[in-house]
């Protein structure tokens, strides 16, 4: 009896011991070998430059067992012959991270809400008309050659590239574009809602030219409706000869029939196989681009998008070289991956590693709240916020402090520089003393507990954050702590996305950490978020009102008339932004971070900050450029 009890206690201890034992870091075998290396060096000998080759013994330390390097390249790598790309070898295949699974993976209709677009369909198959370049702000041609407006921006003429073919051999031409527009007009708002709204009619001028007659002037017609701006081109052109049979209910068309070779798009890959969590695409060697002289065939013969469960699983797959391009990853996971598989790189070499996502984070404040309706208090919050510290703690250093409400891409530089020159940019650090002085100037005094108090009311700021987004939760926690340091009794309240939207509509709501998916090459889209729309009585979730808001609306309306990136729009931007700063209904915090590990074991020439031919997101449609640029590793 007695020893049984002892046994139980022992077991308890043993189990704990086991736990601790299992926790030691998995070992990587490090072996040190002496290797003979031929060293070629250029030596200055008696005034002459001589090239000499010496055999040297070098001590080489290698990490063995984990991440075995690819076969030595002495012999040429084996190649999969055409027709068998389904079984392409590892070095001919690119593995991408799929962020989700799909209950119905056999539906290739691009307009399903949770569709399979970003697990390969729009990276490998649907080619866009135009792609926006985030660095230069230019709209680069793809299937389209050019799209030119008239002087009043209400007639646009689209020129298509010659020689483009659908994957079944039919020509891609103006008929397809006109058909697609008509399909959108019939099926809106389920598909092509904005095309239906802006396009009065689309006319075929000749096989490669389409003229769009707009319902109203729109300087952003090409950018917003027909280009890859963020994520993908929503209004993809579809082949008329297939979709015309489904015109009465295009949403119900699954666009999948392996016997007919569907889905049909123009891209250099075809669907080969799929399950709920994996999609396989193989190269189509008859791709139009070669014959048309547009581009060579991409090198990868097979593309696979796979969904792994948790981040630990993804990271583990990456270490095993079962992933080439990863979706957003935490810094800790990336460092763990890089330690075991040094072939992984990121956008920047070293901190912050991350590329900026187009949706910067900011703190929005309810300007109708009895306390926070005072702009000076909101300015005090702005002074108390330390953006660098948010980056250090909430992001562990993997992001950038925001200088304004805008994303900090090359194309936005001229606007942000102008704001900085005008003294309107946000400071990366805090000025707690100035914040306190500002609060005290409004009649608040510190109470015994160290909070500001006025007329028996404590200065509180409840910050709502989103349960689903750990990043936003962490920003909220840090901001709350920073505000507490200056005497504002700030707390965060975590809500699901769902209830959060409801809570923000309540009068008692004080503030929330929010995101602004605005313009990536012009300020108008971002600034328009606080405009409220035509006939609105207040702007945005901030419920901004008052004379400054009225003036701001007019300034933004003026901005709407400029073509994206027009240098003449810089001054109006500064003018509009000044009203925003004067009232400060919201406070920019940080850039959104995307830490995207990329594997150079089998593939090189990934986009990086030094080689920014495009941005490194592989779930967005610009991945066409990445796939075409990839080169096999030596």
């Amino acid at each position, binding site marked *: 009896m007695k020893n049984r009890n002892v*046994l*139980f206690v022992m*077991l308890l201890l*043993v*189990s704990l011991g086991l736990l601790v034992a*299992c926790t030691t870091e*998995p070992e990587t075998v490090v072996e040190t070998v002496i290797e003979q290396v031929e060293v070629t060096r250029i030596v200055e000998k008696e005034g002459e430059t001589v090239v000499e080759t010496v055999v040297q013994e070098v001590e080489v330390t290698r990490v063995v067992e984990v991440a075995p390097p690819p076969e030595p390249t002495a012999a040429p790598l084996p190649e999969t012959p055409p027709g068998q790309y389904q*079984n392409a070898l590892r070095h001919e295949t690119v593995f991408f991270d799929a962020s*989700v*699974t*799909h*209950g*119905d993976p056999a*539906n290739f209709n691009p307009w*399903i*809400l*949770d*569709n399979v677009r970003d697990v390969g369909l729009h990276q490998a198959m649907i080619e866009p008309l135009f792609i926006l370049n985030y660095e230069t702000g230019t709209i680069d041609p793809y299937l389209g050659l050019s799209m030119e407006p008239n002087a009043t921006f209400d007639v646009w003429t689209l020129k298509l590239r010659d020689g483009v073919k659908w994957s079944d051999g039919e020509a891609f031409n103006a008929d397809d574009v006109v058909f697609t527009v008509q399909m959108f007009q019939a099926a*809106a*708002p*389920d598909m092509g*809602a*904005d095309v239906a*709204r802006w396009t009065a009619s689309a006319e075929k001028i000749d096989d490669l030219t389409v003229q769009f007659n707009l319902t109203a002037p729109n300087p952003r017609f090409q950018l917003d*409706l027909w280009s890859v*701006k*963020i*994520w*993908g081109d*929503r209004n993809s052109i579809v082949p008329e000869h297939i979709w015309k049979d489904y015109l009465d209910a295009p*949403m*119900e068309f699954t666009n999948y029939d392996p016997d007919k070779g569907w889905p049909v798009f123009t891209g250099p890959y075809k669907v080969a196989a799929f*399950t*709920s*969590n*994996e999609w*396989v695409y193989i190269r189509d060697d008859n791709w139009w681009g070669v014959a048309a002289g547009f581009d060579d065939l991409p090198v990868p013969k097979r593309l*696979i998008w*796979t*969904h*792994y*469960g*948790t981040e*630990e*699983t993804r990271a*583990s*797959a990456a270490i*095993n070289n*079962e992933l080439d391009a990863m979706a957003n990853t935490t810094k800790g996971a990336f460092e763990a991956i890089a330690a075991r598989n040094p072939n992984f790189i990121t956008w920047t070499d070293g901190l912050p590693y991350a590329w900026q996502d*187009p*949706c910067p984070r900011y703190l929005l404040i309810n300007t109708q709240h009895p306390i926070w309706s005072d702009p000076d208090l909101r300015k005090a919050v702005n002074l108390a916020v330390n953006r660098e510290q948010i980056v250090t703690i909430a992001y562990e250093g993997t992001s950038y402090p925001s200088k304004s409400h805008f994303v900090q891409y090359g194309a936005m530089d001229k606007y942000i520089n102008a704001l900085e020159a005008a003294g309107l940019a946000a400071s990366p650090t805090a000025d707690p003393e100035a914040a306190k002085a500002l609060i005290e100037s409004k009649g608040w005094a510190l109470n015994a507990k160290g909070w500001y108090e006025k007329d028996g009311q404590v200065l509180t700021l409840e910050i709502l954050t989103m349960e*689903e987004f750990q990043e936003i939760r962490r920003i909220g926690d840090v901001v709350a702590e920073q505000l507490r340091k200056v005497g504002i009794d700030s707390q965060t309240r975590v809500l699901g*996305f*769902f*209830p959060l*939207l*409801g809570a923000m509509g309540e009068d008692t709501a004080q503030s929330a950490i929010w*995101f602004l*998916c*605005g313009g990536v090459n012009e300020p108008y889209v971002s600034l328009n978020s606080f405009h409220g729309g035509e006939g609105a009585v207040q702007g945005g979730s901030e419920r901004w009102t008052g004379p400054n808001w009225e003036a701001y609306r007019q300034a933004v309306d003026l901005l709407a008339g400029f073509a994206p990136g027009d240098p003449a729009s810089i001054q109006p931007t500064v003018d509009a932004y000044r009203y925003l700063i004067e009232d400060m209904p919201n406070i920019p915090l940080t850039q959104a971070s995307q830490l995207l590990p990329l594997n150079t074991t089998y593939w090189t020439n990934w986009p990086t900050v030094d080689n920014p031919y495009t941005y490194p997101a592989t779930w967005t449609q610009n991945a066409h450029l990445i796939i075409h640029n990839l080169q096999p590793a030596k």
Partner: protein
Amino acid sequence: MGGLTIRYLMRRIGIYLFTVFASATLVFLIARATPGDPVESRWRQIEMDQGQIPEIEAIIARYKTRFGLDDPLSVQYVKYLGNTARFDFGYSFSQFPTPVWRLIRRALPWSLGLSVTTLLISFFVGNTVGAIFAWERTPRFIKSIIPSTLIFTSVPSVLAALFLLYVFAMLLRWFPLAGAYSRDVQPGWNWPFILDVIKYGTLPVLSILIVNVGWTVLGMRAMLVTIAGEDYVRLAEAKGLNPFYTLYRYKVRNALLPQLTGLALSLSGLIAGQVLVETIFAYPGMGLLIFQGIRSQDYPVIQATSYMLILLTATSVLLIDLLYPLIDPRITHDGGQA
């Protein structure tokens, strides 16, 4: 056979039907109790991933009408009950116009496979170990080892899954990380595919198993100990029968039947635990479907999958309850179970 009276049958089936009705109502009410609007919330969330969506108000309005969210609650409820009774769960919201039934048909076989395998293994292993545990002739050292297995009963299945994943898939790489079968095999009744499914299913099954088997062990032990005091067992032992024969013939066989009821009762816990485990292993069953439904706030999918799981549980319990008197002639079902 005589134990199965009409009165009992009616009552049992009545309970079953009422359970199904109550759970359908519960599932409906939970979905509607949500503050805020699932359609709008989902579209806003998509904006966060994909950038601003033009004309989003019009799209949201269209979806609300399409999913009948404009109707009064009572109308929605009656419609819902009628549709559910016919297994017509309507369209998935996030994958419109895919019918929910198509999603379930894809996921259900995987989940059923996991549950049945786990249940069978748990039943046989658990009862065998339980019997060894309770038998007087079992060597003492074995008896003292067994309680250590109970440690696993104290681990949530999610943690067990993570632990197995870490050790066997990440460190040792004996098993794959995620999914249900590999891309190299052709789904169908061929050996490579079946072997692949077993390989991919091992860790998920183990995760649920090691958490559940302990309870079967404990239950079996308690059962056997109780039976050991019965007169017929004492008589058998007094007759000097082979102890192993006594164990099997007089004890285990009698103890197994009540264990069967336990099996039915543990089913609901098993299935719920499986929801979590499938998520960890990205196993394409009902659990993952529910989890994805929750993530994308796809209410038709959440409603349908949870309703189906509850229906499955209730039906299995009903079957076991009805079969029970057929197997065990000692049980009669007329006057309640006092």
